[in-house]
């Protein structure tokens, strides 16, 4: 620094500007993307868009079954993945921290996180749709998504469990509590906000997934709502994919409006997660 000449200073400033540009330009592009989608979407967005079934006429087509399908999927996925993911995290953090098995599970989770989502679709197709005989159903789709986000739930829950101080567990044991009593009455309540935040973010990720649902067999043209776990289904990303792949240009507007609904749903989930985190954060020790 000391020996930098005038030219050196200029070059350094230019380089810093270049580096800053590398952060700003992609973010700017993202803003342009959102603005572009929004400007296309306004022509379709409205109450009718949310409450209409798909149609061959672009102006009348809506996202109702896809939106309901996405809501169902996210609730069922959450119901499947949360108990399993939190259970696995408790086992790894509270029971088996250093064992060989824990290492194996940990390595395995890291690897699963890198498996492309379309391969989870193949797993769902082979395992749930065919072998388990669920068919191309809501349940098969949700089970596939549950396995897809399971590593995220486990990792987030472990983080949360790790923030609970050891002294609280020791205090609980000193009072004569068993390990499970300690976990249920001391550790879990304290780790709960963290677990919840991480899990909501995981579900938000599941909501945006397209490829695994296509492979599992979500439908693209649905004129009814799913009435049971075994019913055929569609979801917002699938409906968007269908519209964007159509040759008629007017359906592009529907796709844009569908994207706004999808991003709005994900944004709401993320906002809920941030709200919960801020609300409970103050109570930590």
């Amino acid at each position, binding site marked *: 620094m000391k020996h930098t000449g005038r030219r050196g200073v200029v070059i350094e400033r230019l380089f810093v500007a270049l*580096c800053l540009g*590398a952060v700003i330009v992609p973010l700017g592009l993202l803003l342009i993307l959102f603005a572009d989608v929004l400007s296309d979407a306004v022509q379709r967005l409205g109450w009718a868009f949310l409450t209409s079934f798909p149609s061959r006429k672009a102006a009348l087509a809506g996202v109702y079954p896809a939106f309901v399908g996405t809501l169902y999927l996210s609730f069922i996925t959450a119901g499947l993945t949360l108990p399993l993911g939190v259970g696995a995290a408790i086992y790894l953090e509270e*029971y088996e921290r250093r064992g060989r098995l824990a290492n194996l599970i940990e390595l395995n989770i890291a690897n699963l996180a890198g498996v492309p989502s379309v391969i989870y679709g193949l797993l769902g197709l082979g395992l749930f749709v065919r072998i388990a005989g669920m068919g191309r159903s809501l349940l098969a789709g949700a089970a596939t998504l549950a396995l897809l986000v*399971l590593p995220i739930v486990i990792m987030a829950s472990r983080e949360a469990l790790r923030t609970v101080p050891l002294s609280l567990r020791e205090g609980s044991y000193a009072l004569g509590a068993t390990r499970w009593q300690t976990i249920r009455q001391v550790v879990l309540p304290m780790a709960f906000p963290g677990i919840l935040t991480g899990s909501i973010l995981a579900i938000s990720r599941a909501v945006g997934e*397209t490829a695994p649902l296509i492979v599992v067999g979500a439908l693209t043209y649905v004129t009814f709502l799913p009435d049971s776990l075994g019913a055929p289904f569609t979801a917002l990303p699938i409906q968007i994919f269908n519209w964007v792949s159509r040759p008629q240009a007017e359906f592009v507007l529907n796709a844009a409006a569908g994207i706004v609904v999808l991003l709005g749903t994900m944004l709401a989930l993320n906002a809920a997660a941030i709200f919960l985190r801020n609300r409970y954060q103050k109570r930590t020790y």
Partner: protein
Amino acid sequence: MLSAAPGGRVHGRSAGLGERLIEVGLLGCGLLSIFTTAGILFVLAIETFAFFREVTLAQFFFDTQWTPLFADKHFGIWPLVSGTVLTSGIAILVALPFGLLAAIYLSEFAEQRVRKVLKPALEILAGVPTIVYGYFALVFVTPILQAMIPGLAGFNSLSAGMIMGMMIIPMISSMTEDALYAVPNSLREGAYALGATRLSTIFRVVLPAAVSGIAASVILAISRAVGETMIVAIAAGQQPRLTLDPRLPVETMTTYIVQVSMGDTPAGTLEYRSIFVVGAALFVMTFTMNFVSQRLTRRYRSAV
């Protein structure tokens, strides 16, 4: 840690049957992740073996056409591999300079306050659903590129690859930044003490010290691009073509799986099995890259 005490009786009260059952149940949850991996391997393996009872390995590896959906069936995997390599290659060409420079900015230049805002902002890029990027590539980017590049098809790997590159910028920037951050300050101070400028310190000291971490991030980003599905399915086309011309429609391995899944292919047919074969090849490619990336990460963590 809690089970540190030997002999089993760690706690005030002895563990009853209920406690044991709970532990077994929780272990079951932990094992589910291993069953998931086993399930993936099992499903891919059985359909792949069934596929190769009808198609020879020579047809798979030495044919240059991939047409399982036509009457005249060819099963040469290379057109799908070339489509995948081409789109991922374009993506990494875009993501590498942006990701590296962004990481350098965040780690070496940005104030703590600015960093706290920009880092999570950059992460948003990886959180946007890929279907949205696909829309952007097809509806927004392709028409702009067509105005500049004559002969650019409506579906092409250029537009899809560029947008995929935008998506994987945070994967490179965030892991690279970790690696740069892990370089001890004593190295930087040593360089300054020798009279090095800030730039030469970055290029001659910090970056070389972090090189295995940077390599790990790039490999992971490539793996992510190879497994990416919706952007290429929407914007790169669905025509298997053995080419490296970025202006033409191609088909990636992931797109093929989606293309077949969109139709109603009955189980047990060769078309049905072919998506599992392509999936198996995809799994082997991404798994290898993830493995190498993890190894490199471990190396720089233990080295620094």
